[in-house]
């Protein structure tokens, strides 16, 4: 088929070496709020299912990406904070740095490239870190994103999988839209698996686990998160218009789910469906529920058969239950609004247009 052969040619060009063990995990500042189950699931999959070593400790901080992208702090400050993260990694005896957030990944990549081309800047940051904290650092041997890790280990996950991305009734593979965060490969195409035009990292996971990837015209378009304009409420019309372009473009393909590897993108893709439904009465699926949006960890967790409420799927605006039903997933719907063993006292208000 013309499409796959052409894409495979490009994927051969953009290969990336991904280490398979001993990771230093740097958590994200906002992902843990939006998608509370994702990072714990990542650690659980790596440690319990695949027997890998991953260090998750409390001393690291935000990479300061939000402040940097909002022009609130200068680049040197971000570089020094990043240098401290590397210093923590070295101190713990690790060489493989894995940042949870994709904007972080973009920042680390950008900084490492800057230091490569301008060693004098690296020297300056070494001095600044020493002055500020008395620490020394070394650059990591490998810097990879956790979605790269899941991509590299996708067949190991497949071996333990309880479910596939296949419609349980008809046997048809699910149609999946994949959305890769801009900071993954658009800045440095050779730092992403598959390059910037046809990234392979999420496609590989979906295809390995039985799904079919949908290629629609606005696939490469940014979701509009951007940080700097989004922080001001009046500017959000610009951001939502970007995401709406993507929805309008993917609608004819009738996708069953969207997978992303960024913290901000699924936030937009999930929540804006509610806003668009309220503003214009438009829902992008025929059943009126909307297109469920998942992070790749949640997708891996579903495929492995984990309890959806421990994955944090109850925090999603667009209901994920229709997807679970489609793949024949067995779960207890009554557990959705429980914390521990107790049902919470006030249930959330139902949205006006989206079905739940």
């Amino acid at each position, binding site marked *: 088929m013309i499409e796959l052969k052409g894409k495979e040619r490009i994927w051969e060009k953009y290969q990336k070496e991904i280490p398979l063990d001993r990771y230093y995990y740097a958590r994200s500042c906002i992902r843990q709020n939006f998608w509370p189950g994702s990072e714990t699931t990542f650690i659980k999959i790596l440690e319990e299912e695949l027997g890998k070593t991953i260090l998750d400790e409390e001393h690291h901080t935000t990479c300061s990406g939000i402040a940097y992208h909002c022009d609130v702090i200068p680049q040197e400050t971000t570089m020094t904070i990043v240098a401290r993260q590397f210093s923590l990694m070295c101190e713990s005896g690790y060489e493989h740095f894995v940042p949870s957030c994709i904007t972080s990944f973009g920042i680390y990549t950008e900084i490492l490239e800057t230091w490569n081309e301008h060693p004098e800047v690296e020297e300056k940051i070494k001095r600044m870190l020493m002055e500020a904290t008395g620490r020394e650092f070394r650059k990591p041997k490998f810097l990879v994103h956790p979605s790269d890790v899941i991509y590299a280990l996708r067949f190991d996950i497949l071996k333990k999988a309880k479910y596939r991305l296949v419609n349980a009734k008809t046997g048809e593979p699910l149609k999946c839209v994949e959305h890769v965060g801009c900071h993954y490969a658009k800045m440095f195409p050779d730092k992403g698996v598959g390059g910037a035009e046809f990234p392979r990292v999420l496609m590989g996971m979906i295809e390995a686990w039985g799904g079919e990837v949908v290629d629609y015209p606005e696939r490469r378009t940014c979701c509009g998160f951007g940080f700097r304009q989004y922080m001001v409420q009046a500017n*959000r*019309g*610009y951001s939502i*218009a970007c995401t709406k*372009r993507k929805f309008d473009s993917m609608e004819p393909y009738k996708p069953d789910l969207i997978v992303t590897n960024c913290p901000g993108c699924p936030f937009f893709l999930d929540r804006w469906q509610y806003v668009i439904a309220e*503003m*214009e009465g438009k829902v992008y699926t025929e059943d009126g529920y909307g297109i469920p949006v998942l992070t790749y960890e949640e997708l891996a967790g579903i495929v492995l058969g984990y309890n959806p409420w421990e994955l944090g799927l109850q925090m999603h605006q667009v209901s994920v239950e229709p997807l679970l039903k489609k793949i024949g997933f067995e779960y207890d719907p009554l557990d959705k609004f429980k914390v521990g063993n107790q049902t919470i006292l006030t249930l959330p208000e139902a949205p006006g247009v989206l079905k739940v």
Partner: protein
Amino acid sequence: MAKNKFGFSIHHDRQHNLDTADRNLYNRIALVEPSIQRCIFCGGCASTCTASKFTDLSFRLVSLNLRRGYIDEVKEMVARCMLCGKCTMVCPRDVNIRHLMVLLKKEFSENEF
């Protein structure tokens, strides 16, 4: 109102869709005065145009906008033309611009757009 509830509204998409552009006016005009087909949008007309110094009129843009289906902009600009004929004198491709302007003025006065 959505704006009050959320504090913003969805921005308008300004990417022009050529598939749905209305080229009927251009096609009708080009039948009567085919020289418009050889326009290369060099802007010689606009630079010498009397009205362009004080208004938005640019036949270069009229020529383009007709092809893109931006009829409202064309209507606005055509109203400013004084038919002085300077554009027709300088056009390197010998487009009969004055005639085209007369045709357009007639179209807009006789038809609804």
